[in-house]
């Protein structure tokens, strides 16, 4: 690529093709740069940009450094692209590269143009020495430390502790030995590397992607670098870079896979939601970190119980693991192989706590149960009993089980921490604010158990059975208060799992107790009235249907039916009448019933069926209470239904009764005026008067005039009629014609005319 550094003009396709023919090392991948993929601007800038991107990407890959990084030429040889981990990528790339026939790489390494100076060779050396774990381990922890550029220790540094044996197998093929980089000059080093080239090639092919250890690729080995100019494959790799390897399945540094927490979820906002966790709740506990791991690794083989040789399947991966663990040669029992591990490269079992086999012999030594704070939810008796049980069981089996467990190489895959974690989760599920509600049977069971035990050991041992108050989780109310900005309309609602979006802003209006009571009373009363009305209606309907039925029933049963009918009617009336007086309708009851529209209808239908005396009483009652009824009727306007039946009744009234009726109608002071204001009232009045008139005119022996009551009443009516303003006089349903003649008897002409007017006005105008 540096070949074309001088080119400032845009490259055309032809040129590129020509180049391709000229040189074998330029390959098709360069289309991106010079071919179709090229953008028509300054390619240097473009590359710089892309290179920076790549660098960032590579850093993200965690040091895998397999982007299309190209490294400038190696000293003396072809410029080769070395796949570098990010630290190496920061190695200054001298611009003053000798232009060897390095192959075109897609982009210069990052920082190529950034750092103008710097020796390429030096940087390369540092790269090689620093990046490759093998060399680094050989050289010591601060291999490239003495180099000028502050090359940060490569990420694989920690591995070096673990890998002293590894050097023998590294693909780099470096001869083991004191290859301290600082001792070598760059050229010497290069020479060494070159020498170490050929035998390495075979290993390279299978080790390109990973080291023996199964670690992810850390770097392309230096040997690979030296081969660059040799094979076309290498040249391609130089130019393009190794393709991105899949993220290593096997964990780096033997870390537990559980450390690889899934990418953080888009968590609901903190308000009202569970705390944001970097590691989601479901992940098991992590294994200790790498530095701790080393200790573990060294300790645990010692801790590990001995096992007979040949136990367990031996896989090739296991063999590799064995090689790695050969450091644990200091095995006390000196048995054949190191602990065999299931799965390739997994170090997990090593990091367990002391294995459970120790439980066996220890069991008997533990007299009292280990009280775990999270088991306090269980009844203390329960816990005690069960630990006893455990101990007794453990004691007899301890020896045997311990032995067997100690021989099982796969035991303790689940670490103590993990067991505790599961237990903790299960305990959390037992927390309850109301144990009697949540676990009734358990509580009862234990109460019984306790009682039984007390009974049994009564007197023998006064063991204190204090009731432990199990810790109860307080019911925490998390009320979400929406964030409000002053002066803004509405509230900002951030919804999460725990507080879903509030759709409707409801306002609760709570009524006071008094109000509620009153309302209730009113409703209750009304309900009662309606109920009474309904019952009466059913009776009424039966009465009404009587005739039909009467016709249908045969002779014998007719009497019975008649009886029934009579009782019904009596019942009907009974519900209306006063308690003691038979001929007076209870005002209260009447009012109540009439206050309901249906009640009015009921009465109107009822009256025809009542015997005359009772009917008269009903009408009396109506008349008496007319003002009140009128007031209640304002909404319904249903009183007029009563006109017809009442008229019928009136027509059958005796004179005395009529007089009484009129009197009732007039009632107390001021009642008449109210009556006049009501349509029904007026109608009723007129009816009465007309009836009276009829009586008078028809029957000469009418007793109407015998006492003065009638006359007086008529007079008062007349007076009232005259006084009442026409506006307040309500128009009657109809005006009986003979009223005038009635009035003519009592009043003089003038007044008569006035009355006439009144009568006429009322009926005509409305």
């Amino acid at each position, binding site marked *: 690529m540096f070949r074309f550094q001088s080119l400032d003009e845009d490259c055309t396709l032809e040129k590129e093709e020509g180049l391709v023919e000229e040189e074998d090392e330029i390959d098709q991948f360069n289309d991106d740069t010079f071919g179709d993929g090229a953008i028509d601007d300054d390619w240097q800038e473009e590359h710089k940009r892309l290179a920076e991107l790549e660098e960032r990407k590579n850093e993200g890959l965690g040091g895998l450094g397999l982007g299309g990084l190209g490294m400038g030429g190696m000293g003396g040889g072809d410029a080769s692209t070395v796949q570098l981990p990010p630290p190496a990528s920061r190695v200054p790339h001298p611009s003053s590269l000798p232009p060897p026939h390095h192959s075109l790489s897609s982009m210069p390494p990052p920082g190529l143009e950034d750092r103008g100076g710097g020796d390429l060779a030096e940087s390369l050396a540092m790269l090689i020495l620093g990046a490759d774990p093998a060399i680094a381990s050989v050289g010591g922890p601060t291999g490239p430390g003495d180099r000028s550029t502050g090359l940060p220790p490569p990420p694989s540094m920690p591995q070096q502790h673990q890998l002293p044996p590894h050097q023998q197998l590294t693909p780099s093929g470096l001869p083991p030995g004191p290859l301290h980089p600082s001792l070598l000059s760059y050229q010497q080093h290069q020479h060494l590397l070159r020498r170490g080239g050929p035998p390495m090639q075979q290993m390279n092919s299978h080790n390109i992607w990973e080291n023996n250890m199964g670690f992810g690729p850390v770097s392309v080995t230096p040997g690979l670098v030296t081969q660059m100019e040799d094979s076309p494959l290498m040249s391609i790799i130089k130019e393009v870079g190794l393709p991105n390897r899949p993220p290593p399945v096997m964990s780096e540094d033997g870390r537990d896979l559980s450390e690889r927490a899934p990418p953080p979820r888009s968590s609901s906002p903190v308000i009202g939601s569970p705390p944001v966790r970097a590691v989601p709740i479901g992940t098991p506990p992590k294994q200790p970190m790498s530095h701790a791991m080393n200790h573990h690794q060294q300790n645990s083989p010692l801790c590990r119980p001995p096992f007979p040789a040949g136990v367990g399947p031996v896989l090739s991966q296991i063999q590799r693991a064995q090689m790695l663990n050969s450091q644990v040669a200091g095995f006390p029992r000196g048995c054949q192989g190191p602990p065999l591990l299931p799965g390739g490269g997994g170090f997990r079992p090593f990091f367990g706590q002391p294995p459970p086999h120790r439980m066996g012999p220890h069991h008997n030594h533990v007299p009292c149960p280990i009280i775990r704070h999270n*088991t306090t939810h269980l009844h203390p008796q329960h816990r005690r*009993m069960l630990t006893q049980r455990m101990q007794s069981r453990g004691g007899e089996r301890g020896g045997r089980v311990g032995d067997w467990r100690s021989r099982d190489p*796969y035991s303790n*895959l689940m670490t103590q921490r993990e067991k505790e974690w*599961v237990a903790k989760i299960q305990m959390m599920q037992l927390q309850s604010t109301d144990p009697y509600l949540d676990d009734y049977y358990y509580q009862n069971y234990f109460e019984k158990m306790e009682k039984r035990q007390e009974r049994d050991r009564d007197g023998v041992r006064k063991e204190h059975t204090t009731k432990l108050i199990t810790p109860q989780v307080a019911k925490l109310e998390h009320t979400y208060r929406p964030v409000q900005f002053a002066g803004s309309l509405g509230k900002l609602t951030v919804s999460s799992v725990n507080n879903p979006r509030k759709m409707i802003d409801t306002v609760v209006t709570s009524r006071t107790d008094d109000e509620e009571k009153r309302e209730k009373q009113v409703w209750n009363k009304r309900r009662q009235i309606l109920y009474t009305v309904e019952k009466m209606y059913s009776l009424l309907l039966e009465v009404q249907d009587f005739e039909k039925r009467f016709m249908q029933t045969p002779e014998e049963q007719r009497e019975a039916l008649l009886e029934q009918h009579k009782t019904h009617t009596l019942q009907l009336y009974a519900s209306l009448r006063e308690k003691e007086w038979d001929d007076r309708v209870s005002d209260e009851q009447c009012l109540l019933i009439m206050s309901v529209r249906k009640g009015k209808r009921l009465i109107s239908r009822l009256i025809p069926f009542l015997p005359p005396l009772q009917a008269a009483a009903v009408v009396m009652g109506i008349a008496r209470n007319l003002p009140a009824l009128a007031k209640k009727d304002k909404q319904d306007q249903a009183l007029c239904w009563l006109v017809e039946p009442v008229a019928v009744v009136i027509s059958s009234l005796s004179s005395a009764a009529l007089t009484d009726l009129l009197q009732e109608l007039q009632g107390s002071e001021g009642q008449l005026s109210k009556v006049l204001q009501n349509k029904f009232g007026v109608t009723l009045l007129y009816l009465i008067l007309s009836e009276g008139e009829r009586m008078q005119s028809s029957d000469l022996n009418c007793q109407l005039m015998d006492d003065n009551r009638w006359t007086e009443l008529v007079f008062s009516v007349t007076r009232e009629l005259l006084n009442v303003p026409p506006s307040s006089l309500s128009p009657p349903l109809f005006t009986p014609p003979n009223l005038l003649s009635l009035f003519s008897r009592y009043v003089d002409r003038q007044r008569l005319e006035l009355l006439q007017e009144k009568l006429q006005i009322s009926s005509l105008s409305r």
Partner: protein
Amino acid sequence: MNYMPGTASLIDDIDKKHLVLLRDGRTLIGFLRSIDQFANLVFHQTVERIHVGKKFGDIPRGIFIVRGENVVLLGEIDIDKLCDHILQQVSIEEILEEQRLQQQAKQKTEKAKVTALKDRGLSIPKADNLDEY
């Protein structure tokens, strides 16, 4: 260490040999290596045991991970107590063959039943095992 005394916890069953019956009718025997809060189980050196009549056969399966909801029952096996004398272990091929024959016989009887019912005008709808609701 006492894990959840008095409760049914699988923690104490770890590293012991267990027999588990799954919802699909399989019987697995293996060492219980790991559990979690859903009773998902990790079995090691698992063997699927097929029973036909008095014979049984073991098919080694390696490592099994069973999702908790599929477990019907799980029980510890006493290692010291060997297999019953009643049951006779046979080779895998034989047991599979036996199983196949058993399935065939079953299907035949089922079919006969269905045709018999059909002749009488009755039909019992086939219960879909997957549909539990």
